């Protein structure tokens, strides 16, 4: 069993550009992901959903992972929770959560961490709760798996948690079924369940995408308050840059299974250094600015993860592809630290990028 666990998905041609290599020093941060690769072999070829991703996160802080569909953000989050079936996913690299490497750990260890040390809020609360059991029963079950307490104590805890996330009359609603809750309340119940064991890491995968704006605002407030209370680390996965700006401390922008920019929220929004981030900012209509006559979309569509373009994955869609002497077509840019705490993966000279941002991109936002 032991050998199968660390299935090496790394293919020979990829070894070269893996930074660092086999370093396995203990992590300095609470969550540390190093050169994570998650590949799915299919009949059509290997889907490289995540292909060399590294980031770190401390307790009490929030990391926003942004990207379009198929950029690998959800696959990453499932990887951190150790939820990929090792029979059809090849996971390599390191995922350290509170001193344990999830990739190398045996399933039993990961299972004990899941729910207790780390837990997850899914996008669609209706399909991620069991319709057959009451909301209370599902929270009680999650709590009792990790805590040796009686049903009565667990039930009291469930009522307490439902109250904490703002469900009115929790003592009564605890016996309701998921369908009796509205969308916003189901998401609250989901959060109550995820927080029932006081996790140190909370992964929220598009937690508000299915909700209306007013309810979304409530849920974001709730996450912010709960983070202060529990001092948890939050990984917030979303495609909505507005949500990220509201909640995150750091941002990781993903494209084609890799990080293209990794910076503090302030740098990413005010001094972004990757053309894809510029593109994302330019494509959104914004309520906080004068209405522009036209949006500036990124041309084309996201790449297939089976045939990620050679060199820079974003190159075929990049508005500035002519400025890099053809390097982007052949050579994959590495994520390098350009300023303290600000990393980006792009071949364009840094000064040129700063100049483009100031002269061409920022005025049009």
């Amino acid at each position, binding site marked *: 069993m032991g050998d199968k666990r660390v299935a090496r998905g790394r293919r020979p041609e990829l070894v070269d550009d893996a930074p660092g290599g086999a370093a396995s020093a203990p992590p300095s941060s609470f969550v540390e992901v190093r050169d994570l690769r998650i590949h799915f072999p299919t009949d059509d070829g290997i889907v490289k959903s995540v292909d060399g991703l590294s980031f770190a996160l401390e307790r009490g802080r929030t990391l926003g992972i942004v990207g379009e569909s198929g950029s690998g953000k959800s696959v990453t989050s499932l990887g951190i929770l150790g939820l990929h079936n090792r029979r059809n996913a090849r996971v390599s690299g390191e995922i350290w959560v509170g001193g344990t490497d999830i990739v190398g750990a045996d399933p039993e260890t990961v299972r004990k961490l899941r729910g207790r040390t780390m837990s997850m809020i899914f996008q669609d609360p209706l399909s991620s709760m069991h319709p057959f059991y009451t909301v209370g029963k599902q929270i009680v079950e999650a709590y009792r798996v990790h805590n040796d307490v009686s049903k009565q104590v667990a039930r009291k805890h469930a009522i307490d948690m439902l109250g904490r996330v703002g469900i009115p009359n929790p003592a009564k609603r605890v016996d309701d079924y998921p369908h009796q809750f509205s969308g916003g309340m189901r998401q609250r119940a989901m959060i109550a369940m995820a927080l029932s064991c006081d996790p140190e890491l909370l992964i929220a995968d598009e937690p508000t995408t299915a909700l209306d704006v*007013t309810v979304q605002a409530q849920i974001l407030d709730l996450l912010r308050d709960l983070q202060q209370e529990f001092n948890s680390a939050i990984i917030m996965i979303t495609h909505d840059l507005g949500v990220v700006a509201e909640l995150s401390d750091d941002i990781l922008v993903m494209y084609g299974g890799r990080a293209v920019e990794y910076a503090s929220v302030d740098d990413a929004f005010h001094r972004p250094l990757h053309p894809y981030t510029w593109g994302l900012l330019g494509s959104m209509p914004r309520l906080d600015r004068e209405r522009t006559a036209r949006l500036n979309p990124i041309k084309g569509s996201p790449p297939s993860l089976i045939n990620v373009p050679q060199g820079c994955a974003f190159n075929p869609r990049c508005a500035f592809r002519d400025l890099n002497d053809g390097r982007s077509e052949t050579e994959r840019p590495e994520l390098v630290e350009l300023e303290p705490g600000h990393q980006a993966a792009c071949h364009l000279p840094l000064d040129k990028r700063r100049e483009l941002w100031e002269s061409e991109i920022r005025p049009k936002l």
Partner: protein
Amino acid sequence: MNTSKTPEPAAPAGQNAAPRPAGEALLEVDGLGKHFPVTAGLLRRQVAAVKAVDGVSFSVRKGETLGLVGESGCGKSTTGRMIMRLLDPSFGRVTFEGTDITKLSQAKLRPHRRDLQMIFQDPYSSLNPRKTVGALVGAPFKLQSIQTEHGVKKAVQELLELVGLNPEHYNRYPHEFSGGQRQRIGIARTLALRPKLIIADEPVSALDVSVQAQVVNLLEDLQDELDLTYVVIAHDLSVVRHISDRVAVMYLGKIVEIADRNDLYERPMHPYTNALLSAVPIPDPAERAGRERIRLQGDVPSPMDPPPACRFHTRCWKAQDICKQVEPPLVELSPGHQAACHFPENAAAPATGLVADATAKPDD
């Protein structure tokens, strides 16, 4: 107020008619409503009704874009479907180019279908996976038995080119296209018969941000090129602001505010509009601290049993006794800006008097 219309007997009281805009009205919706029956028991007796839309009135001028916003369950999609006659209204009237199409039979409606088309939200479920793009986009010609000048194939290829797709992809199937491209196929099909009015129900919400911008730009280009009129139904307030000329905000089956785009976004009058706007996350971390936020408590009440009088009073921070007793009519508080509220924001002092006047004699 300009209530030259006869009062609509079937519509609930308190809904003033929409003002006649200056331009030529292509579409007029008057006191439109849809109640879905809720049945129970062996005999399927009606025990209640879901009041999905409960008397909405507005008009759309030729060449303009009206945005219809609101949260899920506010009746915006039902309104769109009633205009298309995909649903039969329970009461009220839809007038298109001067013809009342509310009661037309399917046969009589058919010629009008050419002029009224719809873009659907989900580009995955709105295209038949077994048909080629050519067949999908060419279907309207067959259904309406229209002779095209150089054959259907040529016409379809022109349409594909118009929406930015490769005309050579005529024989491909929907699954071979990405989400954005599929939405373009849907738009090409919508445009086949050169409609005058297009109802777009969440046209971009299933798409990624970068692709969303492409489709928004395409819709705007097509509007200029083909002189189209749009009713865009969406929940994303920033997208609606970008593409609309006028915006109507719906809450629980009623229009609570309707105004020119800039007016509505800069000086929202109805508290609900204010709350909606302040809930939109702003993609600028610098704004995080300084923003004044309005947080609505709880959820939208059930449309089966909406609150009496002002439907928003259960969640409104300005609500007083009158809001629970008297329904505020939709009143023009400043030129072209109507709101249904007893205590509107951003309104001059006399405006509040206007509301009181209109409340006192709703059938004036």
